[in-house]
């Protein structure tokens, strides 16, 4: 080694030493935590018997709570009405809505919740009459049976992809009417019983025929979380459904099987074949990985009036930001008529309380096919570029 090389080596070693020294100077995030042995003091058995248990306090800590919300959305889009030979079209619009809710919990076993909302009608520029979104009473009997009575919303089924139908939501109409729901713990989770009616169900017949009846039993069998669901409406359908979800490594796998039988004797003579619908699902969701995936596949044996054979894929990129916006990609496809939709979107906050969405949607398939008939923000366009700004405020 010549003299120059030695000096270089020496300099590098000095620099390396300085770097090491510099690292030692960094603040130790755990400094002082283990300087002395902490006696892990036993809790005295005499916990204050008058102290309200945490599980009760969580319910009653705010005996009454009133909240309001205002939302304004404005957007514009431009696109083509046909893939070939189409015209350039543009559209824009806005939506303003406001709502208020009251949540009263005078006792730990009793609760009232009501929520109203109104929207600005774009054509008349008047706010519509306030609609009741939810209005229900909760009653808990002996910390065992939980009742919810009134207008409430409920979602069943494992389907998650926003662009696909939700064949598992047997109780999707419950929010259109009034209902009584009971939940009791059973197995590892619980049993739900539901009776409800909507304006559409009401008829001249006896009362019991105006009601829909539904029930579920959800529990775990080893690593599999399962659910058994049933729904019955007089002169309509008897539906049964089984769901199963299991974590497998980093994936969550789901399977849902639904069957419907006509419950009317008259209808049974014409339509004796039961209808089967299957949904399978794969979810890969981790917050700190480059891409998250949602994949769903739906098969339906009755395809004449319904989408029967569909797939949906959703990709989000949790660690990626483009101009501060989160990108996402959605693809849905109907195998029966070869129609589908692809949406590339970017979403995120722009300034305080205002978020922006930039979307590039495209629909393919012949006129009259499933996705061409779906109501979308694209209107009569098949491909476009849209921008939406949303302002939300709660108080």
């Amino acid at each position, binding site marked *: 080694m010549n003299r120059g090389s030695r000096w270089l080596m020496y300099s590098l070693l000095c620099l390396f030493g300085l770097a090491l020294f510099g690292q030692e100077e960094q603040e130790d*995030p755990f400094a002082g935590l*283990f*300087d002395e042995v*902490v006696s892990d003091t036993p809790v005295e058995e005499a916990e204050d018997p008058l102290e309200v248990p945490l599980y009760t306090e969580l319910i009653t800590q705010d005996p009454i709570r009133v909240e309001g919300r205002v939302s304004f959305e404005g957007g514009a889009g431009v696109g083509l009405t046909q893939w070939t030979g189409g015209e350039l079209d543009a559209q824009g619009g806005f939506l303003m809505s406001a709502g208020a809710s009251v949540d009263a919990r005078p006792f730990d076993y009793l609760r009232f919740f009501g929520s109203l909302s109104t929207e600005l009608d774009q054509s008349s520029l008047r706010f519509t009459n306030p609609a009741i979104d939810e209005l229900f009473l909760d009653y808990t009997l002996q910390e*065992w049976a939980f009742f919810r009575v009134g207008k409430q919303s409920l979602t069943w089924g494992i389907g998650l992809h926003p662009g696909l139908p939700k064949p598992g939501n047997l109780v999707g109409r419950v929010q259109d009417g009034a209902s009584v729901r009971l939940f009791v713990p059973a197995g590892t989770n619980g049993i739900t019983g539901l009776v409800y009616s909507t304006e559409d169900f009401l008829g001249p017949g006896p009362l019991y025929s105006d009601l829909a009846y539904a029930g579920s039993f959800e529990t775990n069998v080893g690593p599999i*979380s399962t659910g058994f669901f049933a729904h019955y409406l007089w002169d309509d359908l008897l539906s049964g459904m089984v769901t199963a*979800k299991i*974590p497998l490594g980093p994936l969550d796998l789901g399977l849902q099987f639904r069957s419907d039988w006509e419950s009317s004797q008259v209808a049974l003579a014409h339509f004796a074949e039961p209808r089967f619908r299957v949904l399978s699902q794969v979810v890969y969701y981790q917050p*700190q990985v480059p891409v998250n995936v949602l994949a769903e596949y739906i098969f339906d044996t009755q395809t004449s009036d319904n989408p029967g054979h569909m797939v949906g894929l959703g990709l989000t990129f949790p660690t990626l930001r483009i101009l501060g916006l989160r990108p996402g990609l959605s693809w849905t496809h109907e195998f029966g008529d070869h129609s589908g939709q692809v949406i590339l979107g970017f979403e995120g906050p722009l300034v305080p309380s205002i978020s922006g969405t930039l979307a590039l949607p495209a629909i393919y398939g012949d006129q009259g096919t499933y996705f061409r008939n779906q109501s979308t923000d694209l209107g009569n366009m098949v491909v476009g570029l849209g921008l939406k700004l949303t302002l939300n405020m709660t108080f």
Partner: protein
Amino acid sequence: MRSFAFVLFFFVSLVSLTAQNLLSQIDSRVDLGNQDFSGEYTIVQERPGQGTSSMKAAVFRRDREDKFLILLMEPTVDRGKGYLKIGDSLLLYDPSSRRFTTTSARDRFQNSNARTSDFFRTSLADDYSIESETTEQLGAYRTRVLTLVATNTQVSFPRMKIWVDENLLIRKTEDYSLSGQLLRTTAIPRYQQFGSSYVPTQLVILDVLAGNERTALSVARASVSPVPDLVFTQGYLERTSR
């Protein structure tokens, strides 16, 4: 020669059994057995250059049925969101959509460096085997340092190092990726004793991968009073949510 092989096999099996027994004993220190647990967790997260954020959550545990429930209390925007773990499945409840979704239990808790598994008892004996063991002085604690390797893919981290004090309580952990990269370091300076069981009541987590973000968890109102069955169900999340 055959008898030598048998003795060697017997010895290896015995060492392996003893090692797994050690992990079982460590697990049993934080297993509440037939007792329920409830507590109020405060989570303070320091992100370099981004300031500090905090959240509060109520936690209920029932180890004998492998269940826990976490209900977010603060910040206000997340109030009423809940996690219900039953066995291996974890349900998330979103009060705005009144919907439950299932996910695997390795998720980060509310985008913090804490994981839902940090609120639950450990199951090291089920999930890991001991690769090596040394001793080390950790501040005032004389500890055994165990290097663990995962025996299944369900765990959050494929490799871990744990510092165990003389009471068989874990005082520090280092979580590694499969490639050996340090991902997270956790210090547990304080436990609360309930009979023969212990619950961590102070944790400090350093997320190396996220640029040394520091998360501190502390527990108040720790109790082992019985909790009704209804609390460990979807019904309770619906009942408490706003």
